[in-house]
């Protein structure tokens, strides 16, 4: 008979595979057997290690919270494993949408006027102007094609890896996470239009660089990253 619950050694510790074709009842029964077996073996060997790293992978099955709790309870009671993560090959529709929003670049074509706030759950690309008194706030990075005269706040939740790419012309205010920079240069040189990238450097200071340095500053900028697995 093919086993539905298998334990496999991995680099960090162990991986518990739950067969997605089996019923949940079958899984829990087999898990009980496996845990009992392990406990007996543990007693014999005199092994005393605690908090052994365990990842649980449920294949194409999505475990709900109750099921996860049940499994966690069983494992914690009967073994010395400590569960680091629940993974599966699938995810809920809501979760996928949420993730998609978080990692995709939202595009807006509009003028942000005084008193208006344009907000984005992830990265945002604005094609249009931000007037004085208007602000654009994103949890991720901000890219602006057009003039920025108001406030641009990237990484509003504290993400210091967020960047702002814009034409930092005059009179704008730049914020990344909790760093603030006011653009006040009035000399002729700074009045020239030049697109730059604002970012938080290694010393946690908001600084500016030319666009060709963007890839060096933030190597993963053009990749869809993060957010899906905890």
């Amino acid at each position, binding site marked *: 008979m093919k086993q539905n619950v298998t334990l496999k050694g991995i680099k960090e510790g162990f991986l518990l595979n739950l067969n997605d074709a089996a019923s949940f009842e079958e899984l829990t029964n087999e898990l009980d057997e496996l845990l009992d077996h392990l406990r007996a073996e543990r007693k014999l060997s005199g092994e005393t290690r605690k908090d052994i790293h365990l990842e649980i992978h449920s294949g194409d099955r999505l475990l709900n919270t109750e099921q996860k709790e049940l499994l966690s309870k069983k494992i914690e009671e009967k073994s010395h494993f400590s569960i680091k993560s629940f993974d599966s090959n699938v995810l809920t529709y809501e979760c996928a949408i949420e993730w998609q929003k978080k990692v995709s670049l939202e595009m807006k074509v509009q003028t942000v006027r005084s008193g208006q706030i344009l907000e984005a759950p992830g990265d945002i690309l604005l094609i249009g102007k931000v007037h*004085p*008194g208007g602000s654009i706030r994103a949890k991720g990075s901000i890219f602006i094609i057009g003039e920025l005269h108001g406030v641009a706040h990237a990484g509003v939740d504290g993400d210091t890896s967020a960047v702002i790419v814009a034409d930092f012309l005059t*009179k704008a*205010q730049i914020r990344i996470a909790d760093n603030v920079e006011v653009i006040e240069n009035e000399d002729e040189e700074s009045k020239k239009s030049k697109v730059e990238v604002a970012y938080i450097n290694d010393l946690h200071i908001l600084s500016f660089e030319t666009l060709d340095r963007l890839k060096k500053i933030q190597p993963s900028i053009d990749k869809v990253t993060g957010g899906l697995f905890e």
Partner: protein
Amino acid sequence: MSTAIVITSGKGGVGKTTSTANLGTALALQGKKVCLIDMDIGLRNLDVILGLENRIIYDIVDVVEERAKLHQALIKDKRFNDNLYLLPAAQNADKNSINEQQMIDIVEELRSDYDYILIDCPAGIEQGFKNSIAAADRAFIVTTPEISAIRDADRIIGLLEQTEISEPKLIINRIRKRMMQDGEVMDVDEITRHLSIDLLGIIFDDDDVVRSSNNGDPIVLNPKNAASQGYRNIARRILGETVPLMSLKTEKQSFWQKIFGKKK
């Protein structure tokens, strides 16, 4: 002892914000510690006239809703060695975001640090106006020689009489010498008598006021300008000096001035 002064008018566009910025600057230039409060929540302008717009991080609504401490929201105007501060209004909220008690609390907290607290009142007589006058000890009414502005000023004075604010003072703004001399508009005496309150000062209409505001510099910084002198005189009167009213007489242009344009 610090004094909180509300600058109000009823009608919009008569120069409340410009007057607040200039009087605050003039008092700061006299070495007084001044805090300006912009109460025009939703349509703030005082920051723009002072050229501090892009330095706003927190505003008065952030303070009221406890997202920021009062001192964090104050913006220092670097030009006047620590003498001039601005508490900006919020732009994305409305006038009902604050109530009278919260305004009183803010002003009370500022009193210990500042000699003068100037409150820039929004146009109208709704919540914004009520908040602005709630914490004030004195009131300056700004009007222009236009009948509509005078009518609104009269209404405001009536409303102020029902409060504890003592003796509002009048500032007549945007005076065009020639029109007043020719009797096309009410003159200074008529306006003052009609409103029956004390005159604090008069400000002549001058293109440079707008030009200067556009650059974020209050006109008071230019000592030669006529409007600037008007504001400086008012500041001195606030400090207790006796300063004579400026003359309405227009200088006759000489033959050479007519040819070569206005003398600088």
